[in-house]
């Protein structure tokens, strides 16, 4: 009973990690930029939701929607101003640039918003639902619902629409995509908008689950990195599987071991993965 509760909680967290990890992986796949500002983008989503629900009296669902849209707009501005000027083979430049953006966003949030953690109280807070005889907090169940719906939608977009197929084509073979007349700067912009929208959505739906503060993005960013490495850089299904693995192992380590072991779980999984499959679960095995 205990173990099944732990696994269920782990899957819940894993589903939410997947939202962040998939966005990061998508941006990497198309732009070959490891987005070090992804954690701060997630934070922006959470703070936007806290503001909309707390100050403007939005309901949780419209607030989450508006937050994700706002964050996506921010992501698009970042893309136009900065990311589109990074060329292939300059991945260090992309890392340093996004790191700088992350530093500015995080400290601006601390300066204007204050570093005190806030609790976001929504109409779904402090209620439980029953899932196969196990109790789950309603707010977490809603977050998982969002994760499942948006990842499924992303999958359909990427496999069924021209728009999505262009994104996949560009991440699989850039030269061939250019040959058939795609405009990489447009397609890459779409990928950034989707990736940042997912991170903003993740921040928004997680805001009522945890406390909200400007530094919340840093630890979750690192988990997203680990997920992307474990799943194979740029491999979206890999990122989803890795998220669930991380979520469940953290939950089991925390429940059966200790809080420190829970923090260490992501490192242990990553070390084990690098020992046996250095290119990640689904990596292509090429050294860039």
């Amino acid at each position, binding site marked *: 009973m205990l173990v099944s509760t732990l696994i269920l909680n782990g899957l819940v967290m894993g589903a939410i990690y997947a939202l962040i990890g998939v966005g990061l992986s998508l941006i*990497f796949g198309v732009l*070959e930029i*490891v987005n070090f500002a992804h954690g701060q983008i997630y934070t922006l989503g959470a703070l936007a939701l806290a503001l909309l629900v707390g100050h403007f009296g939005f309901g949780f669902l419209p607030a989450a929607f508006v937050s994700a849209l706002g964050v996506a707009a921010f992501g698009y501005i970042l893309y136009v101003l*900065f990311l589109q*000027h990074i060329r292939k083979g*300059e*991945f*260090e*430049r992309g*890392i*340093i*640039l996004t*790191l*700088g*953006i*992350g*530093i*500015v966003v*995080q*400290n*601006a949030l*601390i*300066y204007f918003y204050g570093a005190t953690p806030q609790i976001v109280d929504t109409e779904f807070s402090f209620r439980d639902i029953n899932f196969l005889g196990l109790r789950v907090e309603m707010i977490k169940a809603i977050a998982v619902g969002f994760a499942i719906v948006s990842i499924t939608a992303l999958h359909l977009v990427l496999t069924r629409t021209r728009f999505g197929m262009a994104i996949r084509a560009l991440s699989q073979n850039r030269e061939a995509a250019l040959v058939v007349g795609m405009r990489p700067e447009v397609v890459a912009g779409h990928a950034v908008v989707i990736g940042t929208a997912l991170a903003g959505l993740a921040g928004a739906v997680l805001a009522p689950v945890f406390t909200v503060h400007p530094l919340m993005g*840093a630890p979750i960013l*690192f988990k997203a*990195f*680990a997920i*992307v*490495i474990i799943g194979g*850089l740029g491999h979206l299904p890999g990122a989803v599987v890795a998220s669930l693995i991380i979520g469940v192992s953290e939950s089991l380590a925390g429940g059966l071991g200790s809080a*420190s072991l829970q*923090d*260490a779980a992501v*490192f242990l999984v*990553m070390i084990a993965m*690098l*020992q046996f499959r*250095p*290119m990640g679960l689904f990596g292509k095995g*090429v*050294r*860039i």
Partner: protein
Amino acid sequence: MAAASMNSPWPPLRRLGLSACAVILFTLPLWSPSDYITGIATLAIFFAVASTGLNVVYGYAGLLSFAQVGFWGLGAYVSALLVTDHGFSPWTAIGCAGAVCVFTSLAGGLAALRVSRDAFVVITLSFSLLLQLLARSWTSLTRGAMGIPGLPSPQVRLGDAILLDGNTASGFYWIALGCGALVVAATWWLLRSRVGRAFVAVNLDENLARSQGISVFLHQLSAFALSALIGGLAGALYVFKLGIVDPGIFDIYYAQMMLIIVIVGGAGHFWFVLLMSFVFTALPELLRLAPELRMILFGLVLIITIQFMPQGLGGYLADRRNRMLRRTE
């Protein structure tokens, strides 16, 4: 990337400039108005050494590493623990800390260098975060968040006479300056040797380097180990300035400072990176900004540099000089 600092090492102007800097640095405690200023200069020396370590692995060998702050903290903890728990003298402890860092970097590098360069960045970052987690959670060894207080000050003795006393601001400054100059000079010498040129060759074109019989893996590993040694030694001496070591030694602030110094100075430009260490340590003190505003400023400097001057100040000036030389010909 490193071409500028490779040819004609000592033109007269540079020799004059370096001698002037050396005189200013060496006499600083004599004319410094307060211990506060001397303390800031001491901090700048530590940043100069630690950033030089990052410059070796990123600027010369082309591997962006976030492990530098990890080695800095690892060196700090090893030397603090050896002094408090095992009765080592600070100097032996610092030497051992350097050795531990080299050993760790070799073991870690063997695994981390097998993956792509992107994954290397993330793995070095996770190394530093893992060490911070250990420092916080392995309380039986590290005392956790409480830290290890009451570290003694290092001294330089000749017989029974104390030449330099780390208890005073000027004494510690000269100790740091002496050790720092030694490490920086040794690094400069190594980077100009065959090994250092091989680092650059591997960075510029791995396959071309291979065709010349240079082992890519071995040189990347040794650049990583050298950066670990430099970072570890710097961190190991730094704790004796603080007098206490706690998990804050792994703070992201140190990593960001080192990165900003190397990027703005110019990756692979030895002297500009040293110069920027002093600029970026002094700047926040001169501007007296709130910590958040200081980091916003640093972040903006980082963004602007990488956007408009991706080779940093050193690369920009070298480019301009080359263009002027071409024009006069």
